[in-house]
């Protein structure tokens, strides 16, 4: 084996190469996202069976996750505990200043605008997102993706676009359930555990509950689902380095997609409520 001749300024050169590789990765990532988004139509037209299979699989999860009830139960459970948190912390803090009657209002306001979309996004990234990365990564390591390309299947449309579409479709019932769970937990926590009368809670909850906000928060959840699925399919699709590489890809994908999802949610919140807060306290 011949040894490469030593170069001038090896450190600077190495630093430059690392920076160039990072820059290059942003480009390939963008290319992958654009390709995935543009071949969504292709996936709907040509790979419908795969799409339906993925939707079924995503709502229930794979492997050991099906045992505990799949994605639906996990996301529902996460929002349930977040709603319970509202009851505990909100009731406590509000009773510090003597207005614990307003817990219902806090539940209607914070659950819809803040907690349900964020928690649902986190749940999506952890369940269907990380699952997609694990699947695609394993396929890449076993050279199944190359095999697909060889037999003439457009792998981006077949694997990535179909997962993004399935994610968007799955997130709608999933998010509805998540919101219901968070309302339920906040109400039960406040009325049954802390002993506030249900009438007081319901009165403030119904007075300040804003259906338009709810619709927008569902849109936020869908946008987060798109971003999460894009990031996760990219990291799965480009996994390398054997079994350890798949694990690392899943970890990196979860990190990136959590950050991306939170920023998406922040951007939507700011653009929705930044100019007109759309909050009517006078009724």
């Amino acid at each position, binding site marked *: 084996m011949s040894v490469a001749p030593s170069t001038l300024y090896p450190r600077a050169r190495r630093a430059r190469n690392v920076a160039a590789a990072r820059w290059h990765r942003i480009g390939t990532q963008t290319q992958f996202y654009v390709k995935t988004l543009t071949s969504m139509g292709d996936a709907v037209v040509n790979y419908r069976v795969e799409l339906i299979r993925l939707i079924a699989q995503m709502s229930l999860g*794979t*492997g*050991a*996750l099906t045992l505990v009830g799949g994605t639906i139960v*996990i996301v529902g*459970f*996460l929002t349930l*505990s*977040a709603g*319970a*948190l509202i009851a*505990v*912390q909100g009731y*406590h*803090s509000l009773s*510090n200043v003597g207005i614990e009657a307003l817990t219902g209002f806090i539940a209607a*306001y*914070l659950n819809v*605008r*803040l907690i349900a979309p*964020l928690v649902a996004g*986190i*749940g999506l*990234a*952890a*369940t269907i997102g*990380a*699952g997609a*990365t*694990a*699947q695609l*990564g*394993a396929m890449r*390591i*076993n050279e199944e993706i190359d095999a697909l390309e060889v037999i003439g299947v457009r792998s981006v449309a077949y694997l990535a676009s179909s997962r993004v579409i399935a994610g968007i479709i799955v997130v709608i019932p999933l998010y509805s359930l998540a919101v219901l769970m968070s309302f339920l937990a906040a109400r039960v926590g406040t009325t049954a555990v802390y002993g506030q009368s249900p009438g007081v809670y319901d009165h403030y909850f119904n007075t300040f509950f804003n259906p338009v906000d709810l619709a927008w928060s569902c849109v936020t959840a869908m946008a987060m689902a798109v971003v999460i699925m894009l990031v996760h399919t990219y990291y799965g699709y480009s996994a390398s380095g*054997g*079994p*350890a*590489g*798949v*694990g*690392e*890809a*899943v*970890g990196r994908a*979860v*990190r990136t997609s*959590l*950050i991306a999802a*939170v*920023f998406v*949610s*922040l951007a939507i*919140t*700011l653009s929705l*409520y*930044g100019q007109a*807060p759309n*909050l009517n*306290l006078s009724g």
Partner: protein
Amino acid sequence: MTGVGGFFAMSADTVWAMFRPPFAWREFFKQGWFVARVSILPTLLLSIPFTVMVVFITNILLVEIGAADISGSGAALGAVTQIGPMVTVLVIAGAAATAMCADLGARTIREELDAMRVMGIDPIEALVVPRVLAATLVALLLSPLVTCVGLTGGFVFSVFLQHVTPGAFVGGLTLLVGLPEVVISLVKAALFGFAASLIACYKGTSVDGGPAGVGNAVNETVVFSFVALFVINVIVTAVGVKATT
């Protein structure tokens, strides 16, 4: 069900091994550095938008009822009691636990753990205990960082973008949040690090089935640690609230 039993058995072994003399200091420092390295950037990137969002949403409400002056207390309440631990959960489970599980899973697949057992080295003592302790320590240290970054972000956002008086913001910080809340938030963070790293180590050491197995194990680590951590959060919050009133 076997998995649950196995998890508790391994947790008990780990706690037992923590107090027995041969302690893998080198591995502990290496893991601590590793966990800190993978989590520091996600921590900063997650805690800023999180707090800005909470501060923004609460400020809308406070401006509407004419109480923008106490937005500092809202920010402090959010950042210290909920966002600090919550972001720590996300980072520890999403970044540290996944990396840990991937690493251990790869070693299990390559039968390195079996090789260690053959050589008479207990993997729990040599690998799991330092990892669990390192993650607990780093989680404990991350939570104040999240809180500080969050409060700074909230301050900048409230004062420069929403025109809250800086003095009122700072003055309101300690209105609802005191030492007990800070201590509870630190306890939460330490518990999160402990639980998440135990789950990661269990899932990592019980991997089978090649690359797909490692991927699934990491996926399950994320899911289970999120679920466990949310539950811990609710329980510790409830207990803490009871204890401080």
